[in-house]
């Protein structure tokens, strides 16, 4: 007993150290993977007020740029409207039952917290459950891939950024349709890696990479980026470096896309697994 007490007194700092490191590593081990983002979500809710204030200041400073982007978007939308108006003014036209055919629901939101310099990057947006955001919805920024929602509270959601090695995306080369798996390698925030493209496929620098829509999360044909470099990797496949279209350093206004028919697709697919 006495020896034990002596031991405890002598090595007390070592014991406390090991105990505290134990807690820290426990926290690390429960770190949010794709399906376990609850901790990040609850932890973040405590600091959200501060983050939102910081974001307000930041968005004020970048108003000019935001204005320009909104103006450009306005023009694009006006063009679309003019096409539709023409259709309605002609004598005969077919009625599209839009809700029957609609597969994707868009919601716009703002990024209030974002990072690019960690290994596992997440960003927080200012809409949540009560605005209809759900886990596994796709996030795009100006029609290019940005991330996927992993957790929602009442008014906020946390999305896993493309800049996260846990984020795997099914993507294809637009010109020839060959698809592979795209993910971030944790290096430069401007580039991601497209793998599993076989070596007999013709790849050119500058080719557009887009989503396939196989995953039931992203719609088909959302742009990811362009090929900036490729090399032969192993015996069979290319390792293609993709210059990302989304500038994650400037991520601000984003669209969240929900797939209405996702459950239908997944349930059907489940039957054959």
């Amino acid at each position, binding site marked *: 007993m006495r020896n034990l007490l002596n031991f405890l007194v002598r090595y007390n700092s070592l014991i406390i*150290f090991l105990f505290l490191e134990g807690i*820290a590593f426990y*926290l690390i081990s429960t770190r949010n993977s794709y399906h376990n983002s609850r901790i990040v979500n609850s932890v973040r809710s405590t*600091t959200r007020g501060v983050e939102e204030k910081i974001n307000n200041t930041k968005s004020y400073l970048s108003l000019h740029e935001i204005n320009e982007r909104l103006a450009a978007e306005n023009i694009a939308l006006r063009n679309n409207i003019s096409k539709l108006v023409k259709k309605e003014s002609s004598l005969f036209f077919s009625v599209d039952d839009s809700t029957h055919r609609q597969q994707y629901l868009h919601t716009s939101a703002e990024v209030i917290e974002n990072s690019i310099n960690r290994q596992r990057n997440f960003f927080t947006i200012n809409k949540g459950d009560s605005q209809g955001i759900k886990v596994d919805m796709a996030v795009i920024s100006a029609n290019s891939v940005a991330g996927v929602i992993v957790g929602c509270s009442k008014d906020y959601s946390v999305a896993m950024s493309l800049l996260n090695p846990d984020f795997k995306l099914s993507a294809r080369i637009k010109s020839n349709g060959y698809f592979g798996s795209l993910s971030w390698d944790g290096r430069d925030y401007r580039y991601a890696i497209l793998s599993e493209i076989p070596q007999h496929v013709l790849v050119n620098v500058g080719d557009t990479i887009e989503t396939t829509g196989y995953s039931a999360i992203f719609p088909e044909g959302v742009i990811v980026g362009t090929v900036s470099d490729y090399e032969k990797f192993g015996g069979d496949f290319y390792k293609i470096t993709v210059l990302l279209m989304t500038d994650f350093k400037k991520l601000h206004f984003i669209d969240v896309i929900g797939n209405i028919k996702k459950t239908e697709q997944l349930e059907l697919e489940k039957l054959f697994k």
Partner: protein
Amino acid sequence: MINSILRFGLIFILLILLQVLLLNNIQFSGYVNPYVYIMFILLLPIEIPSWLLLLLSFATGLIIDFFSGSTGMHTSATVLAGFVRPYILRIVSPKDGYESGSDPSMMIYGFRWFFLYALLMVLVHHTTLFYIEVFRFADFFRTMLRVLLSTMFSMTFILLIEFYRRGK
């Protein structure tokens, strides 16, 4: 006693605010993140009992983790830095030892001493932090580069703050 608790409380709050509000939002090339909050562990009195030092390190790391949305990374790195601090103090100890009841500041022990002490502490902290963040040795040298660059920036900030404190 109460005076010094107030003083360190103020330093603690200021450093955390600086880190969370300013430095966490500066995202340089993706390689550099200065982490200046470690300076709080640097500045605690030399004769602080080791259990208190460890608990304070733990608390500091936990708060930073809360604000950066990373669970446990900063905590483990800061606790390790708190644990090795007495040994580092022993390594860099000046010829005639430390004065009793003094703070490890540039004012008392000079620039060269403080620089070496801060550099060793920051290196320990950053190395742990970045390797835990990556959690693999595949990109060993690239992570090393991140550690060194960030150490440079953190050291610049820490020395500036320390010069400012000395100037007052």
